[in-house]
């Protein structure tokens, strides 16, 4: 297997941004405009015009913050998995020409989505400061929860990328699963509105544990549930281990298929 090259990953990440906005007058500035527009929609449209409120909270911005801290990480998670699922097919011209480490192609996608996530959070934190939000030490956990989330995304992305080479329909299946997964996770709604039977199943949803952790530290000024986080950390690494072991076993076939 070729070495995982930091230079290659960085070049691909830069190219990903330049290709996305190639030919446009504003270029990479669009990378800042998109998150700003999304945040405007979450805060002004959902929070102000539609009057979204959190149960038990009188703060007019509480729902906007609840929505933003759930949606921004979800976009990074969802895009990382969906883009990873076709990365070997999309980059087959590179793979066939140079001896590139295939997992590094997934690293560049995760890195690219992380940069978009950071840009979105710069605007989110600017909004929080402007509205007089009280910052607390629990927020120091924010990057680590995001890191865990991206490890899970990497593991699932590697699994789907490997299998999509052999079964191309999986690309559509991944898209449908992510869409269902989004609505099964309390990101735009609160979990308390769900029926009891759904709440019992919800605790087995990894995205719920992650989203709930963001909500607890940002909105409810509380720590994430320790037991849930430790179990999820173990599960995310187990998925990563299985995905990587499976990839190693099938790597030769993947290259032959491409």
């Amino acid at each position, binding site marked *: 297997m070729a070495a995982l090259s930091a230079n290659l990953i960085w070049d691909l990440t830069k190219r990903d941004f330049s290709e996305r906005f190639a030919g446009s007058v504003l270029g990479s500035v669009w990378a800042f405009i998109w998150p700003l527009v999304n945040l405007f929609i979450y805060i002004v449209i959902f929070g102000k015009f539609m009057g979204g409120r959190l149960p038990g909270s009188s703060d007019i911005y509480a729902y906007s913050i609840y929505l933003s801290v759930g949606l921004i990480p979800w976009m990074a998670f969802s895009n990382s998995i969906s883009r990873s699922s076709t990365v070997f097919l999309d980059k087959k011209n590179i793979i066939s020409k140079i001896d590139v480490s295939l997992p590094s192609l997934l690293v560049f996608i995760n890195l690219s989505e992380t940069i978009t996530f950071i840009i979105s959070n710069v605007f989110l934190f600017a909004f929080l400061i402007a509205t007089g939000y009280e910052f607390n030490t629990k927020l120091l956990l924010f990057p680590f929860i995001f890191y865990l989330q991206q490890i899970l995304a990497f593991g699932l992305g590697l699994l789907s990328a490997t299998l999509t080479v052999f079964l191309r329909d999986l690309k559509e299946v991944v898209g449908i699963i992510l869409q269902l997964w989004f609505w099964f996770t309390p990101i735009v709604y609160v979990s308390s509105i769900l029926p009891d039977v759904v709440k019992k199943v919800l605790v087995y949803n990894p995205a719920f544990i992650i989203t709930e952790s963001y909500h607890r530290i940002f909105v409810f000024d509380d720590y*994430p549930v320790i037991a849930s986080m430790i179990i999820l950390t*173990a599960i995310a690494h187990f998925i990563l281990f299985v995905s990587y072991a499976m990839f190693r076993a099938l790597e030769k076939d993947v290259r032959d298929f491409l």
Partner: protein
Amino acid sequence: MIETLFLITWTALFLMIAYMSWVKIAKHFKIYLMMLYNWLYLTGIFLMFPKLRHTVEYLYEYFA
């Protein structure tokens, strides 16, 4: 303060261990070993971080 100090120390410790392993351990074990370190690193943070302030206050009162 104590939380920030813990995160910096914990991260530096794992970076040092990971670097030493990366240099010395055989190539095909590296990725699996990094997964193991990563798991321990995050588990340590999620396990210790919420209890940190309480533990430090308890120890301070105990020895004071």
